[in-house]
Each structure stands twice: as structure tokens, then as C-alpha cells.
């Protein structure tokens, strides 16, 4: 920094936060953010970086009942304690993780105007500001649309643009990329870059770091509710891989520079079977009604052998999800052949043989305890067997807990446990590492490798390159699959 003290956009002094459960989220945190800076808050899951963002946009203490906060927080010249949330909204813009639950209108134009309308701004002024925001962020493609038909990435872009239109001084972003695919993350990056260029202050709490390396001014490492280290951009990008891993941080390199081998050929297909195991999953000419719009008529073909983890990459998030759903027999108008160990599976057989661990695991947990969830999946399984599977997934100590009370990673492992107990032969994973920090991502990749020892076919759709290189043995690109550049077809 220059010698003269820059304007301070946000200052936290002696902030300590305790949640109603008694957990202490932050211990006497002191933090200053200067005007025009982009500051990254990073650290392991549960370190407190999200809580810090909540202290900056007023969620703590105004919104969360029972959470106590001591200390002083001043953001954009406003004292958080004495300022109403709606007054804060004019100066502090917030973007959260879930694109599906941050919009209020069904048309994008109305959504852009929403915040300004709530603030009582004159309609002509609203139109002007919306137009300016759209031009700044190059968001023309988002205008005049039905929000429901937008993809997750487009929704998040719309949320960002709506907040931008309010022209706040400080932007507070809480893991905005958690549910986005690679293409959408790139768009968010350009939006953040533009925001910074406009002279705004940005505070972003994130796990995914690679897209921020050019934008941040400082990175602040949080651990167990304390600020432990502060880096300048250069110091941060200069960290070695080992140092990063020790701190529990994800990669900083651009995704394309990670070495991943993408097969342009499905070279295992047609080869001899490995050992006594069957031929695994063979897909020929697969297509469905939804995929038809972006694939060639001859459909998708590939194989996934036993003892390998097959990764499917590519920025087309919806293409990957649709492919997995189609494999599992959940999509209408399915054509082509799916075979497992030589046996042809029709749609309902695919339902029985496959298990899809969804992006939102909450949709697939039904019971009132971990144990009962397992019993639901495998009614005839013995207690010993259930305990064995739970133990291998580090869930045994949570047997009596309600599935919804588990953490995200625990829920995911529970879903996997039910799939294993139900003796599913085809395990499909849809973005299993969204929003996970480094250690948990490594845990999931280890899990994938462990699953290889069972007689199952494993297909993982992901855009997480760091995870890919650890977990997958072979990688296919979704565009290649859809356009028939792999597998030779029928």
C-alpha cells in the first residue's frame, strides 16, 4: 500500500460470534478491507470465513436469531449494529451460494429492477441503472427472459447483475461458485473483474481459488475462527503445492494447466475382459429426448470397466447431468443399448442397477436416521453388513442421527452407503466435489479409488480438474461423447 492510509471500506474489530448451538465461530477477529480492494477469505470448511461475510452484510446479528456477536463492524461507513438491513442493502450487495434461491421474480427484467424498486428509486432511474449494469457486465443475453428456463450459471449471473444494478460500494460474496460449472465460473470471474475495475470493494469467501488469482489483492487465511495469515497476491500465488495442501487450500492454477489426459478414443472398448470380472458398463448409441438437442443422432458410446473410475468432463454441466440421468434410466425417450457385464438393461432395469449420487443430495435422503436410511435401501441386509458399510465410510458413529442433520460431506457418504447396500452395480456421481475444501476433496477421491475394488462401474461427472487428476483413471470429454467422437458408435 502507499504510505497514506487508504479509505477503509470495511472494518471488523474484535468480532466474536457464537451460534445458538454453543459453537464459537469467530474469536476476536480483526480485519480491515480498503476501498477498491478484492479480498479473498479462504480456509478449510467450517473455518469461519462464511461467518465473517455474514458479519459484513448484517446477516449476523440481524437475521440469525440466537446468534450472539461481540465487537464492532463498520462496512461502507455504516455501523452494522445500528443500521437496518434495508439500509445496509443500499451499500452492501450480497451474493450467496445457491443460484436457485436468490431471485424473486419470474422474468429477468423484473429481477434486475427488484432491489431498486424496494428502495423506492424512480422508475426512469431504475431503467437507466439496469441498462448501465447490463452494459457493464455484458449481460444482454440474460435480458427479457423467463428465469425458470435459465441454467444455474445464468441464474447466478442474473443475481450478480441484479446486485450490481443497485450500485453498492461493497460486494460480499459467499462461495458464489459452489454450484456452478466451469463456463459459469468464468463468467462470474469477468463480472467480478468488472466490478473491481469500477472501483468497488469486494470480499469473497471461497474454496475454489484458481479463477481469482488475477483479481485478488490480498488473501486472508482463516482457521478455527481466527485470522492466522495474510498474503498479498504475489505471496499467495507463490505458495508451493505442499504449502497449499498443508493449509487445506485448493489449487490456484488455471484449470487447463493441470495435467489431465483426456481420451479421444475409448481405447478399452472391444478389448479382452480383465480377470474374472465382467465387461463392466457398455454404452452404445445412447440418446434421450433431452440430449437430442445437442448431440448427433447416433448417440453416445463408451465403456466403463471394472476397476477403473471414469471421469466425464467438459463445461456443459447440463449435458453431463443429462447423460448420467439417461444412464440411470431417468430420462424419457431413451434409445440405444446399455449393458452391464454383458446383460442388457432396459430403463427399469437401469433404475434398479444404477445409483446416482445427485448434485443436491438432499433429494435422496428419506429416513429419520442413518441406520433407517440404510435399512430402507437394503431391507434384508443384516445389521452387521450395514455397520460394516457405515464403518468403511466413517458414518458408524452417526447411526442414530437424522440424515438432514449431517454435514454435506456426510450426507454424500450416506447416499453412497445406501447405493452400496442396495448392491447397485453402476455408481454415478454428479459433481461430487462442489463446494468442498481441499481435504474433503481428497477424501472423496480416495473414496472413489476404494470403490474400485468392488465389482461396480463408476462414472463421475465433474469439472473439478484437481479432483479429476486424483480420482479418475480415464477421462472423456462430454462434447466428444455427444458429438460421437468417441467410441465408434453402433
Amino acid at each position: 500500500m502507499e504510505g497514506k492510509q487508504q479509505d477503509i471500506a470495511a472494518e471488523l474489530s474484535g468480532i466474536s460470534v457464537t451460534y445458538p448451538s454453543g459453537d464459537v465461530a469467530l474469536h476476536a477477529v480483526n480485519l480491515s478491507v480498503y476501498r477498491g480492494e478484492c479480498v479473498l477469505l479462504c480456509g478449510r470448511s467450517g473455518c469461519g470465513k462464511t461467518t465473517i461475510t455474514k458479519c459484513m452484510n448484517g446477516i449476523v446479528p440481524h437475521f440469525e436469531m440466537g446468534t450472539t456477536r461481540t465487537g464492532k463492524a463498520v462496512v461502507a461507513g455504516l455501523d452494522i449494529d445500528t443500521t437496518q438491513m434495508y439500509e445496509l442493502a443500499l451499500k452492501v450487495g450480497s451474493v450467496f451460494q445457491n443460484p436457485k434461491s436468490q431471485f424473486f421474480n419470474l422474468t429477468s427484467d423484473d429481477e434486475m429492477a427488484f432491489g431498486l424498486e424496494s428502495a423506492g428509486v424512480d422508475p426512469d432511474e431504475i431503467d437507466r441503472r439496469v441498462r448501465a449494469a447490463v452494459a457493464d457486465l455484458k449481460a444482454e443475453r440474460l435480458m427479457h427472459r423467463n428465469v425458470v428456463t435459465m441454467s444455474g450459471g445464468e441464474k447466478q449471473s442474473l443475481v450478480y447483475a441484479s446486485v450490481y444494478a443497485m450500485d453498492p460500494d461493497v460486494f460480499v460474496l459467499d462461495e458464489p461458485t459452489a454450484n456452478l460449472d466451469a463456463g459459469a465460473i468464468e463468467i462470474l470471474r469477468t463480472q467480478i473483474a468488472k466490478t473491481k475495475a469500477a472501483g468497488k470493494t469486494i470480499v469473497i469467501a471461497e474454496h475454489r481459488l484458481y479463477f481469482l488469482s488475477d483479481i485478488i489483492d490480498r488473501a486472508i487465511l482463516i482457521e478455527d475462527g481466527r485470522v492466522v495469515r495474510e498474503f498479498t497476491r504475489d505471496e499467495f500465488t507463490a505458495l508451493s503445492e505442499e504449502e497449499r495442501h498443508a493449509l487445506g487450500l485448493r489449487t490456484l492454477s488455471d484449470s487447463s494447466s493441470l495435467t489431465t489426459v483426456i481420451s479421444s478414443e475409448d481405447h478399452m472398448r472391444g478389448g479382452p475382459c480383465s480377470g474374472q470380472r465382467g465387461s463392466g458398463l457398455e454404452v452404445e448409441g445412447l440418446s434421450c429426448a433431452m440430449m437430442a438437442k445437442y448431440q448427433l443422432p447416433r448417440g453416445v458410446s463408451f465403456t466403463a470397466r471394472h476397476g477403473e473410475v471414469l471421469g466425464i468432463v467438459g463445461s456443459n454441466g447440463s449435458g453431463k447431468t443429462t447423460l448420467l440421468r439417461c444412464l440411470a434410466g431417468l430420462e424419457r425417450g431413451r434409445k440405444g443399448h446399455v449393458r452391464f457385464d454383458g446383460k442388457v438393461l432396459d430403463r427399469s432395469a437401469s433404475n434398479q442397477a444404477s445409483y446416482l449420487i445427485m448434485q443436491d443430495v438432499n433429494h435422496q435422503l428419506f429416513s429419520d436416521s442413518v441406520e433407517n436410511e440404510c435399512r430402507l435401501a437394503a431391507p434384508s441386509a443384516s445389521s452387521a453388513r450395514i455397520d460394516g458399510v457405515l464403518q468403511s465410510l466413517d458414518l458408524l458413529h452417526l447411526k442414530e442421527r437424522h440424515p438432514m442433520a449431517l454435514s454435506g460431506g456426510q450426507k454424500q457418504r450416506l447416499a453412497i452407503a445406501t447405493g452400496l447396500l442396495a448392491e447397485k452395480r453402476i455408481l454415478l456421481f454428479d459433481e461430487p466435489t462442489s463446494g468442498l475444501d481441499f481435504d474433503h476433496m481428497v477424501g472423496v477421491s480416495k473414496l472413489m479409488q476404494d470403490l474400485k475394488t468392488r465389482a461396480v462401474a463408476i462414472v463421475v461427472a465433474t469439472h473439478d480438474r484437481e479432483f479429476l487428476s486424483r480420482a479418475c483413471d480415464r477421462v472423456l470429454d462430454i462434447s466428444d461423447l455427444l458429438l460421437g467422437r468417441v467410441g465408434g458408435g453402433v
Partner: protein
Amino acid sequence: MKSIRLDPRTLIILLSTASVVAFLPKGLGVEIALVSACALLQVACGYPTMAIKWSVGFVVLVVLLNAVLPVLPITVSTVFTISLTYARKIYLCLMVGALAIRSTTVHRFTTALQSWHIPQTFLIPLSITIRYFPMLKSEAGHIRDAMKLKEIPPSQRIECFTVPLIMSATMTADELSAAAVTRGIENPIASTSTERLRMHIDDWLCLAGAVVLCVVAIALA
């Protein structure tokens, strides 16, 4: 011919007049005149297909009630007569309702209600309810798909469907509120609107026409 765009307030008043006329005793001639008037309105607003569908629907309804149901066995006719008769009575309301839904957005509608001094305390939940319908549908779809991949015994199916759905609704409510409040939804100042609703000559003409038809229908009853 350029189609007219009615102010939501006009549509609400038209709906009200249709409700008034609904349960009046009407001769077939009067009914046909009123249905035709509604169909014409739909065409004028730029929805000719809608007008055709509803007109044909009316004809089918009358034919069913007058010619088909009387000759069917009592068990069958009991099932449908009361409901179809009811449908016939509120047919005008349904026609205007269909027009209202197609030609108005929730945003326009809440702006119109706001101009009638209905407080934000009512309008915000209303917007949220309607905005949540599509999401409810997609969540339900995902849960049903997840259930397909598990063999759930019939006795537990309702519970297994309901619980994740309610959990999802609760979580969505929490996330949506956080986003709403940080966007300033609690601002006590009067909300403005980019809709700029104004009653035009088209609106007044429609209202006048509706009042006339209403009076005539009452007089003939």
C-alpha cells in the same frame, strides 16, 4: 391489427363482473352472447387461439350437458353433471381468468394491487408463492427420480416423498429470505415499479362494455 394490452386492474374488474353474472339465471341466447363477447376480448388482446379453444369448449360443454349426459346411465351422469353444470356457470370467469394469466406477469399484477393500496405485507408473500411453483415442481421431480432409484415400499412412499420436499421448501425459504433481506425487501419506503401502469382508452372501453353487458344480463334474468 395491433392487439391491446389491458391493465391488470381492468382484468380484475372484468373478473369481478363475470363473477356477478355467473350465478344469474341466463337464457342460452344470453350465454352465447356473453361467451362471444369474452372470445372477442381474447382476440382483441392478441390470443385468437385461446378464443377459439374456449368457444369450442363452450359448445362441447353445452352439447355434453344437453344431449349426451341425459341419455347416459344414471351412475355415469351423476359423476359429471354437477361439476360440468358448475363449470358452465363460471365459464365466463374461466375465460377472463385464462386471459388474465396469459397477458399479465406477476410483477404487473402486484404493481396493480399496490396502486389499490394493498400493502407489501400481502404482496410479497403473493409474489413468493407464485415464484415458488416452478421450483416446487422441479424439486418434486428430483425427489421422484431419487425414489425411482430406490425400491421404496408403497406404505412409505408418501412419507418418503413428503419429507424431502418439505425440507427443501424450508431450506429454500431460509436462503430466499437471506437474499431478500440483503437486497432490501424490508424497506418501509413505498416500492416503485418499472411497470408504469396506466389506464388507457382500451381499458375504459372494456370496462364500459362489461358494465353494459352485466346490466343487460341482470335485466333479462
